[in-house]
């Protein structure tokens, strides 16, 4: 019988002790592992959606809000900006700007945002059409993969949007009907959560919305003709947008031609100082967000460390106690031919086994609860988290668990190895 088999049998022979150890150790490991999983995935989501965007230009207000709204689609807009004001950044052939993608927000369908924009947004997120085709005419939409899956919208389906950003039946526009022309392939980015259409469609719905509130007994048919006439864009290009100076958009996503260009570095500041708009840098704002959330993570991390110490202590106490209880057994092993080194290794192995089982239990807890929480995160933020990923950091955590198991068992192991078997076996 190998010494490791004996260690294993010793560990499982006292189930109550084992369970207590596993729970204490598992909770510590689970908490740390959960933090790792959550942090990593949150960071991945944010990084994935940076999508090479260098600057977001929108209405004045909180820069973080502008970023969260325009890039991550989890906050409300800071307001809208007239095309007249935004004209300088929308102008084609701008010396600094490679891409300027206008976004017009304001409506949703079942919580998924309808974004009026041009086809260039596809390139930002490496979006590809999976079936059907990209929107072309007014009131045509192309929907992200997650939207298609969650709402069951199919190509050719029609739906009415609701005003605002939350799913609310009372705010549904009864008469403005969108038609699905295409479904995008999944990208893992925020694109999966969006309903894309052209800018004019958002204007059209928006006009309806204003009319509903301000004009009573309005003749809708007449209005529709009128709206179609004035709002129609020929090709939805930025040059086209510039023909409608009085209309508004929400924000513009900007990609520089060369982000290290000196003028590009000052471009945002110029906008903030000299125009009615604000420019926000995603990299700066997201780092700011991390540092704000980071406080909470630090607290949780110290908590996890305390739990880890407690669990190390629990392994120590349990091994120490069982060592006292089993002193005859251990002496007997020596009588049967086991050396002191073997006794030492036996106790160390028992500590390592306890730590390993505790780790496995903790990892299970963290992955299951991450998966469980993913459901809530999905409905709240429309972000896909998952419990079924394994991070490299978890290997490190496993290593640390083994070290804790080793440290906790080293004192009982030394004491057992050094014990005087004559003395123990003479006790009656």
């Amino acid at each position, binding site marked *: *019988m190998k010494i490791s088999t*004996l260690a294993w049998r010793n560990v499982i022979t006292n189930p109550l002790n084992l369970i207590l150890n596993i729970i204490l150790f598992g909770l510590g490991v689970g908490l740390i592992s959960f933090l790792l999983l959550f942090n990593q995935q949150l960071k991945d989501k944010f990084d994935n959606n940076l999508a090479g965007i260098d600057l977001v230009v929108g209405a004045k207000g909180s820069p973080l809000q502008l970023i969260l709204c325009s890039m991550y689609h989890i906050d409300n807009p800071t307001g809208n900006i007239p095309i007249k004001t935004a004209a300088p950044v929308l102008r084609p052939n701008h010396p600094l700007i490679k891409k300027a993608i206008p976004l017009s927000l304001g409506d949703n369908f079942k919580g998924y945002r309808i974004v009026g924009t041009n086809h260039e947004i596809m390139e930002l997120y490496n979006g590809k059409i999976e079936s059907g085709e990209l929107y072309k005419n007014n009131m045509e939409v192309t929907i992200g993969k997650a939207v298609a899956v969650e709402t069951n919208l199919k190509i050719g389906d029609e739906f009415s949007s609701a005003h605002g950003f939350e799913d609310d039946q009372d705010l549904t526009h009864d008469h403005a009907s969108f038609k699905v022309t295409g479904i995008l392939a999944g990208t893992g980015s925020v694109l999966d959560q969006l309903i894309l259409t052209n800018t004019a469609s958002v204007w059209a719905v928006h006009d309806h919305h204003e009319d509903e509130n301000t004009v009573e007994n309005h003749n809708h048919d007449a209005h529709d003709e009128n709206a179609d006439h004035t709002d129609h864009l020929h090709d939805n290009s930025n040059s086209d947008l510039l023909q409608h100076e009085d209309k508004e958009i929400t924000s513009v996503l900007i990609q520089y031609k060369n982000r290290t260009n000196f003028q590009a570095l000052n471009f945002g500041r110029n906008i903030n100082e000299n125009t009615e708009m604000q420019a926000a840098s995603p990299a700066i704002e997201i780092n700011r967000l991390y540092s704000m959330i980071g406080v909470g993570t630090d607290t949780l991390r110290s908590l996890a460390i305390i739990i880890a110490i407690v669990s190390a202590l629990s392994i120590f106490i349990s091994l120490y106690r069982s060592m006292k209880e089993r002193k005859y*057994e251990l002496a007997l*092993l020596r009588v049967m*031919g086991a*050396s002191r080194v*073997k006794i030492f290794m036996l106790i160390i192995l028992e500590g390592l086994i306890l730590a390993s089982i505790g780790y496995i239990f903790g990892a299970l807890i963290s992955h299951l609860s991450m998966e469980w929480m993913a459901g809530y995160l999905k409905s709240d933020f429309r972000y896909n988290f998952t419990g079924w990923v394994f991070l490299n950091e978890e290997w490190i955590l496993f290593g640390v668990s083994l070290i804790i198991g080793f440290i906790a068992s080293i004192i009982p192991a030394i004491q057992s190895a050094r014990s005087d078997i004559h003395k123990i076996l003479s006790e009656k």
Partner: protein
Amino acid sequence: MIQTHDLSFEYPGGHQFNFPDINCKENEMMLVLGNSGVGKTTLLHLLGGLLTATTGGIKIQNKDITKLFGAELDLFRGQHIGIIFQNNHFVHALNVLENLMLAQSLAGAHRDKQKCLQLLERLNIGHKAKSKIKFLSQGERQRVAIARSLINNPSLILADEPTSALDDFNSNEVLKLLEEQSKKIGSALIIVTHDNRLKDKIDKKVILS
């Protein structure tokens, strides 16, 4: 098989025991008698290599075990000496059969399940092979302890008060068993006891005082 000369042991407190020389050949049985406190257990532990003598030598299989230390001594003990303690100790996480097989592997011997089962059968506890130790009666435990001391065919079997807790009938049974089984494997058997019932049953004896 076992010879000692000028054996003595001094406890750290200063209490010193001097033991008469012991000479026990294979297939021989020997009784070490004495009242409590005369150093019976000390002698047994010296012979078993659990304690290092202050003076003198102990030769088992022509090897002086007072010259062995550490892992070497542990292994020699496991291979050549079978010890039966007054209180029978076992590894409680393992069943009867596994306890025997553990004794085999700790002594560096080949794990032979059939041999273990046959031995248990010979001692009439074959049906308990898969039992946990805690479900055995006192008598069954002693038989398992005897089986364990025999499993590696040791040159020397040491028994510490194997009969003192038993009634006359069972005392005789255990003695018979020990005699039979040690003869079967050709080992020397030394019984250390204060049980005077054994006095007339074994010819060769050493009396400690």
